[in-house]
């Protein structure tokens, strides 16, 4: 056993020194390889982090949301409907929610308006997110004006600046009272945006949703787990799509690697010839080539992953964020929670190291079967 390890150690030693002798050629390969790993790893890490963020946010979402549709389009829902829905067994509470978006043409920004469930601001005053506060230069106690649905501006006093732990949630948020909301958006007094249901038993979601659609056929109940699933599929699909696009780059890289591995220089051929002449066997040369590939792959793989990690979790994925996030680009930079998972690393390995390794098998074998007399003559 110690003998076996010694043998491998010597071969690795030899491989490293021979790699270092050809710095230029190997550096170019390493650079391209690292870049490929970096790009793919960034895509995977970023979408995964977004998925987690979405899951964390949705943890506190209501179990079932009931929306109303009219001719397939989304509509406000009559508040009176909540009484009948509350009578369904298993529904703990029904809360009509009021929320929507507002486009501020002066600042070219989209705000989210919400009437909070608990502790709403008094009529005439609002709470705003830190992003709006920064953009409009408004602080606590200031008066701020927004244009309502009828074109008439309304002014509000700022009660609070929201410092939420999740930037994603609170940055563009405006909290206001129900009266102000109805006046501002023009939504009638007996209507709500949707109904939020609390249901304790997760096994009853489906049945309750079915009962609701039976009572009110024009409603569309959305279960929380469905939202999670949809987000997940969406992000998974996005990263998959990017990988498919980048597969052209992978292919180019594989061709590059093939080219590098096949195009042995005269010097390399001579080296192999001499090695064989002094008693190395074909299997030894193959072993050497194996270690060569391992050294290059491992270096590129690790460096690529580390760079991608820094890119995604420390610079918030500056390069890909616009493509992958996909929703309102008004959202500010928000730090993602660092997370690395075994499946991602394995996926990455299959997408980069495996194609590289496989393309180099045949060239390595060709190199290893060179006849010593043919090259040294």
């Amino acid at each position: 056993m110690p003998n076996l390890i010694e043998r491998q150690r010597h071969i690795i030693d030899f491989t490293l020194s021979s790699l270092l002798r050809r710095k230029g050629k190997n550096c170019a390969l390493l650079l391209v390889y690292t870049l490929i790993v970096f790009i793919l790893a960034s895509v995977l890490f970023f979408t995964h982090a977004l998925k987690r963020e979405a899951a964390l946010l949705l943890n506190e979402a209501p179990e079932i949301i009931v929306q109303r549709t009219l001719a397939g389009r989304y509509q406000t829902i009559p508040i009176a409907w909540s009484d009948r829905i509350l009578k369904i067994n298993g529904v703990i509470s029904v809360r009509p929610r009021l929320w929507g978006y507002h486009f501020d043409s002066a600042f070219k920004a989209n705000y989210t308006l919400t009437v909070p469930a608990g502790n709403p601001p008094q009529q005439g005053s609002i709470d705003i997110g830190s992003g709006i506060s920064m953009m409009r230069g408004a602080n606590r106690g200031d008066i701020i004006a927004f244009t309502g649905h009828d074109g008439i501006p309304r002014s509000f006093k700022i009660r609070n600046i929201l410092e939420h732990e999740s930037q994603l949630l609170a940055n563009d948020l405006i909290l206001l009272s129900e009266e102000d909301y109805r006046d501002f958006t023009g939504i009638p007094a007996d209507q709500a945006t949707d109904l939020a249901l609390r249901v304790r038993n997760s096994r009853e979601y489906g049945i309750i949703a079915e009962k609701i659609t039976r009572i009110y056929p024009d409603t569309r109940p959305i279960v929380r787990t469905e939202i999670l699933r949809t987000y997940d599929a969406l992000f998974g699909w996005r990263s998959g799509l990017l990988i498919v696009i980048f597969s052209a780059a992978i292919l180019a890289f594989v061709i590059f690697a093939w080219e590098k591995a096949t195009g042995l220089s005269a010097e390399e051929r001579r080296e192999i010839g001499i090695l064989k002449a002094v008693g190395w066997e074909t299997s030894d040369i193959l072993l050497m080539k194996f270690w060569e590939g391992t050294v290059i792959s491992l270096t590129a793989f690790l460096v690529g992953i580390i760079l991608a990690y820094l890119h995604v979790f420390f610079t918030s994925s500056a390069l890909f964020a616009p493509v992958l996030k996909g929703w309102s680009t008004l959202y500010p930079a928000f730090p993602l929670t660092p997370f690395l998972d075994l499946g991602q690393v394995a996926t990455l390995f299959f997408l980069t190291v495996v194609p590289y390794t496989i393309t180099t098998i045949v060239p390595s074998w060709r190199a290893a079967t060179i006849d010593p007399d043919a090259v040294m003559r």
Partner: protein
Amino acid sequence: MILHPGILALFLSSLLISLMTIYAASCGFMILRRWDIDSGSELQLALERRTCLISSIASYLLALQLLSLFLFIQTADSISHLFVGAMCAVGTLTVNSFGYPTLLLKVLNFILAGLWLILNHADNRGYDYPLIRAKYLLLLIMAPFILTETVVQCIYFTGLKPDIITSCCGTLFSQGSRGIASEILAIPTAPMKILFYSCMAATLAAGARLFLKGKGSYIFAIMSGVTFVISIASIISFISLYFYEMPSHHCPFCILQKEYGYVGYPLYALMSLGTITGLGVGLLQPFRKKETLGMIIPAIQRKLAAVSLFSFFIYTLIASWPILFSSFNLKG
């Protein structure tokens, strides 16, 4: 079809594995037909060189097969919440009827590749390629299985349709669309425990006999195969329960997760190592009569038996650890 990165990686690896297999099998076919060790023709020389390539392809194949097996389970697990009712990989694999066949084929191909490497190792030890025909016959047997795996996996993945919200309706589509069995039917615990430990004891005894006296290689090989099946059944039936500390969660895949300290990886790795080396002992037995291998094969068999014994033993230790030392108890 879900455009999930893991699925794409599996597609790619299957494709590459299949290409390598086709290449290796065509070379193997050539070798089977034209191999003549006494000839000094150019063809024979080229074929001899090619065997070297094939064995390095096969060793990469084995490594890839092992990795892709784990990636397959991992991917199935990570997309499980896309399907209503699926809690982990078990649910995802039952979404359509090609999930489990893919898994089985992956396991089978991994074992076959391992056996091939053992045969190859023995062949390389004899100077006149004594096992060349057997080796390439096995390769030709393996090839259809590997290609089938690629096809079945492709059908499985393309048949996956996630239950997500569509623009027209929410819950209506997902509810009652199908009932996924999120748990596996398991054999009762008590008899399975007796069966597992007695089977393991018998295998270890057969292995020890082979190691010490050099007898009973077929019995040991058969016992290794039986142990493999019983070990998997035991993981489902009771071993996993002790790791989950839950009396009703019979899942062979969740022990691969972080929550359980990735304990599944050493368990499955040891189990397959023990099985492959154990089966390898039996595979080599008929070639003992070959002249050039007369002395070599018994030595290899002893080594294989030692590896197999060691793996099964450590496997049993890890599996028994929580049974003996955790506070979790299955007896009411």
